[in-house]
C-alpha cells in the first residue's frame, strides 16, 4: 500500500509540531523517520496512523483519502514504544484482540482466529508462550508480541514508534536484524521512528531525516550519509567537522589562501563541511587547511586530533592513521576529499 503525506501541518495548542510536511512512501518500503527528540517524527507517525488529526493537509493510503477515516477504520498496525500490551490478557489473547473486535460480518470464526494467532506467534518465534501474561515476558518477547498483535489485523501499513528504544543494546541489535527479515518476508509497507542513526541506516530502505518539525532530507542510507544536503544532516548523521571559508570567483579560500577547491556558490562567506575521516593529509607547504595539533585521542583503529586553525581562532577535528608521528604542537595540513559548502548561518 502506497502512503502519501501531502502538505501536512500540525499544531498543539498553537505550538507548531510539523510545518508543511510531504512524503511519498512506496508499497513494501521500509522507511525510517530519523531525528532528535522534538523533531516531529513521532507526530508524523501518529498522523499517518490517525492517532492525531492534521491541522492542515492530507494523508492518502493508495488513492484513498485516509484523513477522512478514524483510527479504527484505517487498519494500521501500530507498535508502541512501550508496547502497550494489554496486561490482563494472555499473549494469545493480545494477538487475537484485533480480530475478535471486528464487527460480526468481517470477523473470522473462533477457530480461524485461534489458528491465525498461533501462526503469527510461531512466525515471531513465541510459540509455547501463548498462555503467559505480558508481565511474565522479557522486553524482547513483549516487543515480538506487540508486533504479532499489530500484524494480526492484516494492516495496510505497519507503524513502529521507537521499536527498540526500551531494550538493552544486545537485544536491540538482534531484534533489528530480525525485523529486517520479517519485513523481507511479509513485504508490509513499514514506517519506524528512531533517534538512533545506526538503526536507521542499517535497517531502512530510505531514511527521512527530520528536524524542528521539517523534513531535512529524504534518501537511501548512502545518500543521506554521503551527500547530506544541510548542515543539520551533516552533523546529525555521522561525524562532521566544519570551518568558515570565503568564496571568491568560484574558488574556496581559507585563511588568506586558495584551497584549490572550486565552488558554484556566489562570492561571500560560507561554511565548509566535511567528514573527519574523509580527508587527505598534505604537505604543509601545499594549499590546504593547516593548523597546530592541540589534542590527540586514540579512537579504535585511528587517531583523532583537534587542530587549532586560522590563527587559533577555530578548531576542527580530523582523523589520521594511528601510526602517524604527529604529536601535540606538531603542524599538520589537510584537504577534505568530499565536502559541501553551506551559507553561513
Amino acid at each position, binding site marked *: 500500500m502506497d502512503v502519501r503525506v501531502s502538505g501536512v501541518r500540525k*499544531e*498543539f*495548542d498553537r505550538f507548531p509540531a510539523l510545518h508543511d510536511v510531504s512524503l511519498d512512501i512506496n508499497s513494501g518500503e521500509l522507511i525510517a523517520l530519523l531525528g532528535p527528540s522534538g523533531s516531529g517524527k513521532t507526530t508524523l507517525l501518529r498522523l499517518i496512523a*490517525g*492517532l*492525531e*488529526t492534521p*491541522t492542515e493537509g492530507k494523508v492518502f493510503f493508495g488513492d484513498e483519502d485516509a484523513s477522512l477515516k*478514524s*483510527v*479504527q477504520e484505517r487498519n494500521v498496525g501500530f507498535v508502541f514504544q512501550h508496547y502497550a500490551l494489554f496486561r490482563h490478557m494472555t499473549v494469545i489473547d493480545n494477538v487475537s484482540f484485533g480480530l475478535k473486535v471486528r464487527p460480526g460480518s468481517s470477523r473470522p470464526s473462533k477457530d480461524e482466529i485461534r489458528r491465525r494467532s498461533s501462526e503469527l506467534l510461531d512466525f515471531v518465534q513465541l510459540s509455547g508462550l501463548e498462555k503467559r501474561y505480558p508481565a511474565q515476558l522479557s522486553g524482547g518477547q513483549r516487543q515480538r508480541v506487540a508486533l504479532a498483535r499489530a500484524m494480526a489485523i492484516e494492516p495496510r501499513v505497519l507503524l513502529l514508534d521507537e521499536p527498540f528504544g526500551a531494550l538493552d543494546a544486545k537485544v536491540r541489535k538482534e531484534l533489528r536484524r530480525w525485523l529486517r527479515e520479517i519485513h523481507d518476508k511479509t513485504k508490509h509497507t513499514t514506517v519506524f521512528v528512531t533517534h538512533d542513526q545506526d538503526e536507521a541506516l542499517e535497517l531502512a530502505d530510505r531514511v527521512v531525516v527530520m528536524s524542528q518539525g521539517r523534513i531535512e532530507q529524504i534518501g537511501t542510507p548512502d545518500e543521506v550519509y554521503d551527500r547530506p544536503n544541510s548542515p543539520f544532516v551533516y552533523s546529525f548523521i555521522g561525524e562532521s567537522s566544519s570551518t568558515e571559508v570565503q568564496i571568491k570567483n568560484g574558488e574556496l579560500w581559507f585563511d588568506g589562501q586558495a584551497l584549490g577547491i572550486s565552488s558554484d556558490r556566489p562570492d561571500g562567506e560560507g561554511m565548509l563541511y566535511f567528514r573527519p575521516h574523509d580527508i587527505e593529509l598534505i604537505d604543509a607547504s601545499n594549499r590546504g587547511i593547516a593548523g597546530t595539533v592541540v589534542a590527540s585521542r586514540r579512537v579504535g583503529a585511528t587517531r583523532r586530533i583537534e587542530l587549532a586553525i586560522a590563527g587559533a581562532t577555530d578548531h576542527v577535528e580530523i582523523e589520521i592513521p594511528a601510526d602517524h608521528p604527529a604529536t601535540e604542537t606538531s603542524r599538520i595540513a589537510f584537504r577534505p576529499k568530499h565536502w559541501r559548502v553551506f551559507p553561513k548561518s
Partner: protein
Amino acid sequence: MALESGPVTDPTATARHATTERRTARFVLTGIALAFLALFLVLPLVSVFVEAFRKGPTEYLAAFSEPDAQAAIRLTLLVASIAVPLNVVFGVVAAWAIAKFEFKGKAFLTTLIDLPFSVSPVISGLVYVLLFSSQSALGPWLKSQGIEILFAVPGIVLATMFVTFPFVARELIPLMQEQGTTDEEAALSLGANGWQTFWHVTLPNIKWGLLYGVLLCNARAMGEFGAVSVVSGHIRGLTNTMPLHVEILYNEYNFVAAFAVASLLALLALVTLVLKTLLELRYGAELRAVGGH
C-alpha cells in the same frame, strides 16, 4: 458546562479522538456522577444545616446554651485531646520502627495496625465492655480500687483510641518507607544523636503527612459513635459526647437541637475536608505514598 476531555486540549482534535468518549457520552456520564454525588452525599449534608435552622437562629443557638450540650462538647474535646496525641505518638513511633528497621513479622505487624479499620465500631466498644464489666476478671478488682472505666470517661477514651488507632501510623508508614534511611544516616554521621536526628531530620520530612494523619484521626475521634455508644452508658451531662448527645436529642424528637449539635460536627467535617484538600493540593507529591481512608 464546558466539558473537555482530560489530556487533550486541542478542541478540534477531540471530535474523533481515539482515547475519549463522544461528547454526549461524556455529558451523560458526568451528569450521572454529579447527580449521584449530589443525591447521596451533598443533599444529606445540606439537610443538616437546613433542619438545624428550621425554626430560626434563636432556636439554633438555644441548643448550645443547654448545659448538657455544653457538657457534651467539652467531653468530646477532652476525649479527642487525650486520644489523638497518644495515637500520634504511637503512630510516629510505629511508623519509625516499621519503616527504618528490618525485623521478622513486619508485614504481620502492619496488618495488625490496620486491624481496627476492619472491626465494626460496635465490636470495638464491646471488647472493652467484656474486659472491664463487672462480669469480667478485671472489673470487680478495679471497682474495689475505686477506678471506673466502663460508663465513664476512661472507657470512652479507650474506645476512641481503638477506632482511631491506625490513622497516623498508616499515613506515615508508606511515607517513611519511601524516604528510606539515608537522611538519618547522614545526620548520624555528622554527629547528631538519635533524638536530634529525629527532631531535625525525620520530623520535618514527614510533617505534612503527619498533619494529614492527625486531621483524619481527629475527625474520627470527635465523630465516633458506635464504639463510644457501647461503652458510655449514656449518662447525660457526664458521659455523652456530641454524637451521643445528637442521638438522645433526636430520639426525644428534639430535632432542631439534634441537628444544631449535628451541624457543629458537620462543620468539623467540612473543615477537615478543606484542610485535607489544601494539603493534597500543596503537598501532593510529599503525600503521594498515602492511601485512602
